């Protein structure tokens, strides 16, 4: 079997490239402000990273899935070590100046290891889940994958990077689902988290506990599992308030601002309000490429990273937004198709994990700009400035391309 570039999955490659181009153009525009800042020249760097990303994607395309599967534990171990290392020597930057998310050597920021760790977790989970005959049926069987996710998640959350931590959780649930885990088991697994979120309303929390109890009686898991789930749910509800107090003020504020952006428009809600103003004032056709006044006059915060999507909304309008969303949807659906047609469970799970990760990033990032979701600092794939994440996405696309090629070679026929 010889790898030929023209045999790659054209829709996947072209959608990814178009998105990368769209993102680069938007990043260029984000730098066009009336008072030029360092953002003006940032697209050069991003272009360089894109080049590196394309090379990395081609390299990953050349890597056999079996080699990847063999290398997975090492990659996972290395990323955990790097995350540990980051926690010790990491530094903050930009909009996340208060955290320790970057590895800096000699004053040069090398990247955010959390982004690459997401890929490592996907591979590791895929490897573990694919190695089983049956999907996990009990909570006890789920302990190893929980451990796989929890180690990097804990390290990332300690940075602290709440957004990335949420992405790990999403990846975990998505891959369990794709591996055939029963939805009821997933619900039980999620029940403490749901309990935590509902703890703010006594009525909602009470109803949830009653419902959970009924579900436990109906599904009949092992006795100790049922008890554990109930205990965890109770504990989560009880510890919700102390946990809330434990959150850093900026994290509390972000959640509060999500509930009511007008609380203090100059402080907490500022990001959301300015983002909505930028998007809303764009209208159908937008203010024209590079001409968005909100962005030009620096009202839009972090317009090159977390809040790059409002630049699209302001300058290219609803049409630009729909175009971007359509491209993203196409990318996800193509990845789902690739996962479906994959030749073996490991690669299928890998690609599905990648699709889940990208989907969570896209929905969370886009959703927070219109106040649909609370603000977390996770980047928009292919748009937000940031080398590590672009590299992670490129590597992920490279793996998906290889998986697509494999299934094509094995003569996959349309069912």
């Amino acid at each position, binding site marked *: 079997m010889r790898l030929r570039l023209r045999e790659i999955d054209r829709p996947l490659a072209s959608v990814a490239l178009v998105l990368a181009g769209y993102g680069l153009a938007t990043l260029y525009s984000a730098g066009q402000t009336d008072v030029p800042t360092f953002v003006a020249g940032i697209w050069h760097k991003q272009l360089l990273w894109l080049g590196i990303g394309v090379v990395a994607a081609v390299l990953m395309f050349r890597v056999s899935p079996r080699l990847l599967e063999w290398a997975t534990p090492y990659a996972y171990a290395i990323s955990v070590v790097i995350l540990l290392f980051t926690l010790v020597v990491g530094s903050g930057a930009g909009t996340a100046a208060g955290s320790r998310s970057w590895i800096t050597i000699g004053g040069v920021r090398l990247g955010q290891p959390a982004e690459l760790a997401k890929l490592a977790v996907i591979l590791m989970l895929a490897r573990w889940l694919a190695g089983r005959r049956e*999907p996990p049926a009990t909570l006890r069987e789920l302990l190893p994958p929980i451990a796989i996710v929890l180690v990097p998640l804990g390290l990332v959350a300690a940075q602290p990077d709440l957004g990335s931590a949420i992405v790990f959780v999403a990846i975990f649930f998505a891959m369990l689902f794709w591996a055939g885990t029963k939805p009821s088991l997933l619900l039980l697994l999620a029940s403490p988290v749901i309990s935590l979120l509902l703890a703010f309303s006594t009525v909602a929390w009470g109803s949830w506990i009653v419902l959970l109890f009924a579900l436990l009686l109906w599904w009949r898991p092992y006795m100790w599992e049922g008890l554990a789930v109930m205990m965890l749910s109770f504990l989560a509800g009880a510890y919700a308030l102390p946990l809330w107090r434990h959150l850093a003020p900026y994290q509390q504020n972000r959640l509060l601002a999500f509930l009511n952006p007008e609380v203090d428009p100059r402080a907490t809600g500022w990001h959301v309000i300015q983002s*909505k103003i930028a998007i809303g004032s764009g209208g159908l056709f937008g203010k024209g490429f590079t001409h968005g006044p909100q962005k030009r*006059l620096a009202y839009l915060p972090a317009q090159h990273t977390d809040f790059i999507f409002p630049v699209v909304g302001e300058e290219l309008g*609803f049409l630009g*937004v729909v175009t971007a*969303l359509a491209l993203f*949807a196409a990318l996800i659906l193509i990845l789902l198709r690739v996962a*479906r047609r994959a030749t073996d469970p490991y690669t299928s799970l890998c690609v599905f994990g990648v699709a889940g990760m990208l*989907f969570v990033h896209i929905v969370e990032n886009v959703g927070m700009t219109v106040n649909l979701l609370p603000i977390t600092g996770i980047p928009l794939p292919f748009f937000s400035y940031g080398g590590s994440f672009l590299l992670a996405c490129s590597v992920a696309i490279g793996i998906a391309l290889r998986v697509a090629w494999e299934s094509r070679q094995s003569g996959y026929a349309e069912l």
Partner: protein
Amino acid sequence: MNVFHPHLLDRRLRVVRAVVWTVTGVVVLVFFRTQILEHGKYELQSETNRLRPIPLPAPRGIITDRNGRVLAENVPGYTVSLLPGNQDSLRATLTRIAPIVKLDSLGIEHILSRYQRAPYLPVMVLPRATFDVVSALEERRLIFPGLLIQPEPKRFYPDSGLVAHLVGYVGEVTETERSQRRFAAVRLGGLVGKHGLERQYDDSLRGADGVRFVEVSALGHVVREADPASRLAPVAGKPLHTTIDLDLQRYVADIFPAGQRGALLALNPNTGEVLALYSSPGFDPNAFVGGVDPDYWRRLSESESHPLFDRTIQARYPPGSAWKLAMAAIALKRGIVNFRSRMPIPCRGGLQYGNRFFRCWDAAGHGDLPLSDAIAQSCDVYFYQLGLKIGLTSLLEDATALGFRTRTGIDLPGEITSEFPAGTDYYDRFYGPRRWTSAVTLNLAIGQGENAQTLVNMVRFYQMLASDGHARSPYIVRPAASTSASLGLSPDQLAGLRQAMINVVERGTARGARLKAVTIAGKTATSQNPHGPDHGWFIGFAPADKPEIVVGAIVEFWRHGSAVAPLVARVVARYLGADTTVAVRIREALPADTAPQPTSILPGIPEEDTTARDTTPADTTDATPPPRDR
């Protein structure tokens, strides 16, 4: 069972696809709502976000005298303001700018409180910036986000103190004023007239402020001027043409006894035009432009002589002997006397009435004299009896009809009402029913007692004497609605009164006012007051046969009206272009035209104390300092 069997995968894929489509659909719908349905709302917010209105102050209309000479004008000036980002950044900028514009911490707090009232408007830091300050700020423009240096017309009064009470001054509009309909259109921080003509004609002088918009970045830097189409040019205020004769006004200020309190008012008797209006001591209206210095304000408001207080319209004095003409006019109109009428009791230095002896100012007595001589000699005994002949009820009725209880309606703010009893029930209220006698008439008859008149009201009465007997409201720009008050005298009677007043000057109590070329008719008055020496009055007009000017003057504590007479005479002469030298040396030879001390009519009854109000500011709002402008 292989969980990766294609059928099972397809089942899960359907679920996942449904999730992807649903979520994407929801996101698209939310964007549709934000960008299409609520576009207008966010577009507006985007504009208010970045566009800041900068008011373009309209130049106030200039005020000129009757010959077009300037009383109030505008000169170029600079203001320094800041476009605030938010309170913290404004505070930081103010702290940095403070050493350059000489701002203390109190001033910073003051500016911050102004910012809170209108957070989107530029907040004034320095209303009167010198060129040095402006250039020092321009050099450091980068470290002061939102710095705004604007040329702004400044009010300037070339004659400053000479015209202070007349033109008044301008100051920043207060919150209370803005709640009134009259000043509702004035923007926060805008200037309005505070006193005098500036206030009276503020509506036309003010003009309409314009506005321009600038684009401001999130850091508060002014990036550029917004679309010029959105600019609204200011409309300059209309010029105000007054009837004042600036030359005469300056002359009045020049010859008014220095350091004395008092006032002088000159009218054209045939039209009511005010030719000169002067109150002493004055103040510097230029000091109020752009915020008055607190020390200066304290000096003005704490001064015993109340410089802010316009003594032509805001002070009441007992009219004293000047009132005798009113008595004569009322008696003549009622046909009680003619000019040759004599009173039953000749003057022997006083009059016994009931259990009281009412003295004449001249203890030697004037003997038996007719009305015209009684006016010339200001004989109190004659007028005591004339008052009794008229009767209290008729006297009160006629004096009220002549306007001694009303304002003249002069077009200046703050004119107070002259005081005079409306009817006999005033005495019932004051002393109690049947606890007073018609002896009060005797006090009223010589201009004492329950009678306190403003200078402008007395001058208006003499204007009636000097013209055809009809009242004309004094005015500086536009006459008020015409009054129907009239003396109701025949031309002969008017001529007789004028002749008697000529005699006052030629042979009587005001010989010091005699001029070589012009005949002046007038009346002196001396009114007692509880604060010190008597106040001196003189009201006169000239030429006596065909009057062109009527001048009234009062000098507080000047002891005698005949001392005021030369002042008036020189003003008259100046206006008529005659020789202004008067025979000053005669003054010493004059008798003291002092009306007798009004003593209480019944024992144990407190004396009526109208005179106590004469130097108390009537308008208490004057006592509150205008808001400091810095």
